[in-house]
Structure formats: structure tokens, C-alpha cells
């Protein structure tokens, strides 16, 4: 799907990066924990989150997310939008909750950027 189709599907507002709405997205990663985005998001995936602080834009820039999709109707502060324009990361905002958002995208062919975590995730000694 291209970003414009994602925005239409989710009745999402485009808050930054209008000129990138033609970018194609094939994968996604949903999380409210930015450490997990850093750990698992893959280049080109769309970040789906309920956070709105400027960190989400910097994280998206670090992991090469194609866009940020904010859920639960939240509107980020101006500084987040300014930073998104500066770092060229599109931001969309939808009223749908994280579960609905993810499910609707999945039903339209977007898949997780990874399917599951391989191996145990517990104590890792140095």
C-alpha cells in the first residue's frame, strides 16, 4: 500500500510529509516502547505508536522507518511535527486504536517487519 491509501483506509490526518504520500509500505512495527522499535523495526517499515514526543521522529530516522502512524487520535506537539518535516519523516494520525489499526493494515496486505522474536529474551550476561 502507499501511504495515501493507508491514510484513506484509517481516516488518518496527514500531519507531516505530505509530499511522501506516494511511498510504498509493505511492513509495519507497532510499539509504545521505543527501545523495542530500535531493537526490531526494519528499514522501510511504518512505525505504529501511541507516543507523540519528538523522540519518535528521531527513532524513525535512526531505524529508517518510512513513516510514523500515531493511533488513538493523538495529535503530537508542534515540535514533533517540526522535527518530522526537518528529518523528512511523514506523520499520520488515526482515531483507531492500535489493535484496530494493525488489524486493518494486516487485512490489506501489510505484514509485520518481523513475525516473532527468535530465541529467549531473558538474562544476557556480558
Amino acid at each position, binding site marked *: 500500500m502507499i501511504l495515501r491509501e493507508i491514510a484513506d483506509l484509517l481516516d488518518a490526518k496527514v500531519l507531516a510529509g505530505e509530499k511522501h504520500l506516494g511511498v510504498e509500505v509493505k511492513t509495519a512495527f507497532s510499539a509504545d516502547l521505543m527501545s523495542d522499535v530500535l531493537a526490531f523495526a526494519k528499514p522501510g517499515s511504518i512505525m505504529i505508536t501511541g507516543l507523540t514526543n519528538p*523522540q519518535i521522529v528521531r527513532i524513525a530516522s535512526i531505524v529508517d522507518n518510512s513513516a510514523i502512524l500515531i493511533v488513538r487520535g493523538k495529535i503530537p506537539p508542534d515540535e514533533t511535527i517540526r522535527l518530522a518535516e526537518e528529518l523528512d519523516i511523514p506523520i499520520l494520525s488515526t482515531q483507531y486504536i492500535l489493535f484496530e489499526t494493525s488489524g486493518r493494515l494486516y487485512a490489506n496486505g501489510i505484514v509485520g517487519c518481523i513475525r516473532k522474536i527468535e530465541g529467549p529474551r531473558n*538474562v544476557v550476561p556480558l
Partner: protein
Amino acid sequence: MSQEYEVSFPVEGENFVNAGKASVAIKQLLKGLGIQDDILRRAAIATYEAEVNIISYAQQGTINVRVTDDNILINIEDIGPGITDIEQAMEQGYSTANDRIREMGFGAGMGLFNIKNCSDSFEILSEVNKGTLLKIRINR
């Protein structure tokens, strides 16, 4: 011909608004040096987590990045409380983060673990009530 590149960024403790700024700049600089994408990402993810750690726990710190023909060497040094039990701090899920850090989407006890995963070699040196030095090596 061998060519080295070195850059340092100061990071101010408790400056939550700017969290990640140094790491984004470092990623752009490394990209400009023609570093391969996956290596670039690993370096940037490691510095991001370390930067958030300085802001969250220390008074001040420095991120030093040195690029050689073979490696990216990242030293992150701070003046701060230090780490009492490094083994415990490395455990996934162990965290002493406050609400401010958690609201930002951090503080879940993943930071040092993420850094280790991005590194080819990772060393922590810490002295309680003095500070912490993280030494990260990523092979090119």
C-alpha cells in the same frame, strides 16, 4: 591509504527534549562517510540507547565516535551515579527508570541489551558515584 575520522558530542543529563539529537547527527555523519547501511544502523541504535542513558541517569557525558578502516569505535563516558551491579543492569527488564523516562518510551530495561546486540564487542566500566564508560566496537 588509511584514514581515520573522529567526532565527539557532549550530552547533557536530564535534557529530555533533546534525547536522540546527537545520535541522529552521528548517523548522518557516518552516512556521509559512506558507511554501509546495516553497520550505520547498528552504530546509531547503540548510540541512541547510550544517549538516553546519559540523559536519564547521569549529569553529563560525551559520545565519542572513531571510524577506522576496520571498525567503528564508540566510547560513551559519563559523570554520574555509576552502575552498582553491571550484571543485573544487563538483564532485560531490569531498570531504575523514573516516569519521565518511561513516558518517552524508554526505561523498560532494554537499553544495554540493545547496545550489546548491536555491537561486535561491548564493555562496561563503571565506578559508583563517579561515572560509567561504555566501549562499543562495530566491525565494518
